[in-house]
């Protein structure tokens, strides 16, 4: 069995990669992908914690909530992609580019 530490490490690396992507990318689709990466990294961590607490003999709600939580996050992430894409398309139709810098009409 994998050490929880290792899996959590993976989660942290993925989350950081997502964070880095959000901060360094300008293309909106890449931004969206990085954001999803962050959510999914947390999913891994949640599942790991859930397993850990099951091993500690925690009550049912405590032990399984992490897994429920993950499912919920997945569903929300899917919805987020849907809405995100719709918004990006709306921006693209007006600015003719998916570069986040092009949308800077509102400022000051």
């Amino acid at each position, binding site marked *: 069995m994998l050490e929880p530490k290792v899996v959590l490490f993976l989660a942290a690396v993925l989350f950081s990669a997502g964070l880095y992507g959000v901060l360094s990318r300008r293309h909106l689709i890449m931004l969206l992908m990085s954001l999803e990466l962050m959510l999914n990294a947390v999913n891994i*961590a949640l599942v790991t*914690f859930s397993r850990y607490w099951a091993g500690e003999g925690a009550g049912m709600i*405590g032990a399984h909530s992490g897994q429920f939580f993950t499912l*919920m996050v997945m569903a929300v992430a899917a919805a987020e992609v849907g809405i995100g894409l719709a918004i990006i398309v709306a921006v693209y139709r007006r600015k003719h580019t998916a570069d986040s810098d092009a949308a800077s009409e509102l400022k000051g």
Partner: protein
Amino acid sequence: MVGDFDIFLPVVWLLVAAAIVMLIDLFGDDPDKTRMFNFFTALGGVLLAFVSLNPYWDAPPQTIMRGAMLVDQFSAFLVICILIGTAISMFASLSYVKRIGVNLADFLITLLLAASGMVLLTVSNDLIMLFLSIELLSFSVYVLTGLHGRSGRSAEAAMKYFIMGAFATGIMILGMACLYGVTGEVQLKPIGEKLAAIFAARQGTEIMATFGMGAILIAFAFKVGAVPFHSWVPDAYEGAPTTVTGFMAVAVKAAAFGALIRLAVVAFPATASAEGFFGDLGFAGYALWLLSALSMILGNWFAISQRNVKRMLAYSSIAHSGYLLMGLAAAGGNSEVYAGVLYYLLAYTLMTSGAFAMLVYASSGGRDIESIDDLRGLAWKKPAVGIGMAIFMFSLAGIPLTAGFMGKYFIFTQTIAAGGRYLTLAIIGICTSIMGAYYYLRVIAYTYFRDPDDRPVAGKEDWGLKFALGLTVLGTVFLGIFPQGFYDAAQDSVKELQHDHERPAVTAPDKPGTVAHD
């Protein structure tokens, strides 16, 4: 489970109304004919939700869904704020959405979904519900922001809000994962108990707990638009359709502050340790202190140079978040202040949604009021604009006999009573609200004391807008002159919140995570 069904009723009515409007929109032939029917269906949903709150007023708290939700008077108070904001936004939008080329049904559906997300947020009692309801309201508000189909700015605003919001969601879910990781619980009360134990034991896990709480706090600070997580606020507020902006400003804030207070009181331990960042400050006192001070200073400071009225109101809403956060921060020293925060939220709901409705009303010739120059001398062409705008601006500036003054008064006196570093915060608050008076009064000066331009003013406004304005004007003045009844209600609501969650003193266990699983 089915026995508890009536507890869901507020949300259910909103969702049922949304579903009916959806069906009419799908199967109705002519959108113009079904317009009024849609509107009254949605309004009926809001009213029924309001009525179905009645059993929870003056009643003991009830939990449902194995404790995932908790309905008490505290949430009822906030739901009232949210429903008022929703109803005002609906009334104000009746003809406005048509003018900007949006299908009324689309608007109503999304608005009702957002409102139900907010209602759920105020009754959430575990991390999963908290997460889901925040996402439900956020997604709806993203869509509402980008609803103005013809405007590039609306799309840009939605994009910015979405990217920033999704980022904040990522941070929040990370924080929630950390809290779950250290406590093994998702419900707020057990989390609070275990966190208290963890902080008492101090075996290293408190670092992760701290990190988790910090991340959640940051996400909420983002939702309420506190500096330095405020950057989306002016852009999103300016780009969104005006009535949506009003809704965003008041309802999102009420829901987010409600959830934040519940988190602060229930889940984040105030008694964890004598020193450190909980100490006498209660929940994350330093951070809230800092966020509040920054929001008050920068919000007002940025607002001064704005000529775009909506943008100015956006920065002012950041400043108002600062005043509210001041209440939360001071709660570490004086928990009476929560009642002031609730009162302020109600006052803020009325005056801000009123101010935005007034902007819609003042829009002339089918054109949105953008710059403050568009308001020149409007008070003489449309006296109602002058009086209403003056009342809202006086209220926002915190001038006596208005709701805004009483709200500030309650928060400030309680913060001062908390003493110590909160006194400094209160002084910053007073100074910045004097600074704020400048730009609010400038709006009045423009409406009254500048020569009107030659542009025509719009003809007849619809009754919905007038109703919304009448309600908000009367509410603002009434709350300003007779605050006591509302303040008592707020105090009752808060008492219950704290009473219900009074925790027994926690002794340090041998090992974190092995405290009794209840």
